[in-house]
């Protein structure tokens, strides 16, 4: 059996105008918008419906300084992700991998801060999803977002270690795969950009 090469991984497809991995990633992200969109829509319905019964942000026990810190962590990780792509585009694999490693590190920082300083104290005080509609929304939305962070760690970790071999066979293909990974990672950052003010600040 002859090995077939996946077409249009580097050059744009004549019909779509982009390499196929990028179109695939954007289609996936469109489905992700619907997934998170459904949760935001549900949140609006529940919150508007609850009226004055909805807890104020003083009553929710969410820490704004910790939320702000994690927001900055994700923003910096987005910059390092895109710097990894730029370094690879300029032919520098070691610098690209360094930026990928920093991105993974920052993703772990986000998760550890979330778990130790946000989830854990709430669980100890008995604030569980079943306690109120607010906590049900909070844990569902931030929990799904945290799962996406874990997914990002797996994918970036793959391209940082075993996946980096591809660079030696086809550097452009590898660079494009990092761009697609970056698209996903920036989307995860983008979701947090909305989650943070919606849950912590308003």
């Amino acid at each position, binding site marked *: 059996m002859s090995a077939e090469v996946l077409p249009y991984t580097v050059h744009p497809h004549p019909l*779509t*105008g*982009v390499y196929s991995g990028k179109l695939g990633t954007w289609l996936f992200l469109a489905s992700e918008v619907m997934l998170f969109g459904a949760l935001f*829509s549900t949140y609006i319905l529940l919150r508007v419906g609850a009226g004055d019964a909805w807890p104020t942000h003083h009553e929710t026990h969410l820490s704004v300084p910790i939320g702000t810190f994690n927001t900055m962590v994700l923003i910096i990780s987005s910059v390092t992700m895109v710097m990894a792509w730029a370094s690879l*585009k*300029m032919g520098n694999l070691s610098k690209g991998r360094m930026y990928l490693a920093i991105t993974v590190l920052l993703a772990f920082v986000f998760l550890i801060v979330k778990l130790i300083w946000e989830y854990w104290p709430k669980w100890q005080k008995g604030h569980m999803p079943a306690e109120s509609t607010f906590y049900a929304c909070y844990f569902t939305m931030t929990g799904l977002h945290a799962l996406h962070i874990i997914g990002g760690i797996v994918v970036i970790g793959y391209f940082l270690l075993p996946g980096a071999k591809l660079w030696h066979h086809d550097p452009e293909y590898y660079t494009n795969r990092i761009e697609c990974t970056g*698209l996903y990672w920036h989307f995860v950052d*983008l979701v947090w950009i909305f989650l943070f*003010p919606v849950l912590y600040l308003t």
Partner: protein
Amino acid sequence: MAGSHADVQKHVRAYLLVFGALALLTVLTVAASRVEVSQRLHITIALVIATIKASLVAAIFMHLFWERGASIWWTLLFCALFFAVLMMLPSFTRFDIPPQATEQMWDVTAKVAAPAPGH
């Protein structure tokens, strides 16, 4: 899309500028949440700042500013349309409901009917 080193260098400058803007807007949104204004205005300010931040991420970090592939713009157009419908669904729930019903529609207190005689 970036081809030469010079193009990528331009990108890097844009990334750093956007990073500065995102950091500044994060501080701004936290500061704005502490100002004494109505709840409605709080939500509006927070969402406007979040939308600006999200647009910067999508345009520069996700390369949409330089994107020429028509298929991606079509994908985003349909995505935006369906997203808009999703966001409008909560307001659709208030259509065709008599005013006296809307006053009680959010009362989720369980109403237990008295057991029928003989049961």
